[in-house]
C-alpha cells in the first residue's frame, strides 16, 4: 500500500486531472501496454503504468478498477481522455521515466505486483 501522492513524488509526475484524489491508497502496481492483460490479470486497486495513451486505456482502467494511471516516457492524454477520466474519477499522471524505470522505483519501494507470477512458462504454438 502506498498513497498516490507518494507515487507522484517518486516518479516526479505531472498531474493531468483529479488532483483532489491524490490521497487515494494504492494497493498494487501494474505495468502494461496490453489492455487485455490488464483486464485478465489485474486486481482491483492498482496503479497502471502504461505507454498506451488512448481512450481505451481510460475505459480499461474504469472497468478493471484501476485507481490511477501513470503515462510513462512523456506521453500525454488528450482532452477527451481527460474528460472521461474526470467523470470516472480516475487520476491521470505523467512521468518522463520509462516503463522499466518507473516500475523499478515503485517495486523497490515495496509496492506489490497486481499480477501473480506464473508457475511455469508455456509456449503458444
Amino acid at each position, binding site marked *: 500500500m502506498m498513497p498516490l501522492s507518494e507515487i507522484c513524488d517518486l516518479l516526479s509526475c505531472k498531474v493531468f486531472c483529479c488532483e483532489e484524489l491524490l490521497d487515494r491508497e494504492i494497493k498494487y502496481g501494474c505495468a502494461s*501496454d*496490453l*489492455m*487485455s*492483460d*490488464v*483486464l*485478465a490479470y489485474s486486481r*482491483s486497486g492498482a496503479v497502471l503504468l502504461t505507454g*498506451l495513451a*488512448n*481512450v*481505451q*486505456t481510460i*475505459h*480499461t482502467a*474504469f*472497468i*478493471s*478498477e484501476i485507481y490511477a494511471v501513470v503515462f510513462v516516457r512523456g506521453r500525454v492524454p488528450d482532452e477527451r481522455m481527460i474528460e472521461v477520466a474526470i467523470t*470516472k474519477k480516475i487520476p491521470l499522471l505523467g512521468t518522463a521515466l520509462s516503463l522499466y524505470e518507473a516500475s523499478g522505483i515503485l517495486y523497490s519501494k515495496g509496492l506489490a505486483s497486481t499480477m501473480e507470477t506464473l508457475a511455469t512458462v508455456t509456449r*503458444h504454438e
Partner: protein
Amino acid sequence: MNKSFTQTFTVSGNNFSDAGKISTEIKMILKQLGINSDIVRRVAIASYESEMNVVMYACKAKIVLDVDPEVIKIIVEDEGPGIPDIELTMKEGYSTATPEMRELGFGAGMGLPNIKKNSDEFTIKSDVGKGTRLEIIVYIN
C-alpha cells in the same frame, strides 16, 4: 431492493473512438443497482472484451443487459463474418487482429478466454457469413 432491470444497447463495428463506452454504462448501472462489486467487475470485464470484439470484427451488434434477483445475463448478438472454428478462437493466444487493433491494447487472443473465465455460464454460437451470439451469465449470490 428490486434488482430487476433490462436494457438494450447498440454497438457499431469499426467505431474505435467510442469502443468500450457501453460496457462502462453497464458497469455504472450494475453499481447503481447495488450489486456486489466483485460481481460487477466480472460482468464489466466480460462485457468490455465482447464489445471490443464487435468493434474489431463485426459490423454491428445488439447488447442486452438483463438483471434479475438471481443472475445477470448479457447477450451480445452481432451481424458480422461469424467464426468458422469456435474451438480454435477460444484458445488463448489465437487472434486475427490487425496492427491497428493491437495499437489499442487489444488483439492478443485473450478476450474470449477471459470472457469465459469471468462467466458462470458461457455460450457462444456462430453462423459464418451472418454473425455471432454470446451469452454471458453471472450468478449474483
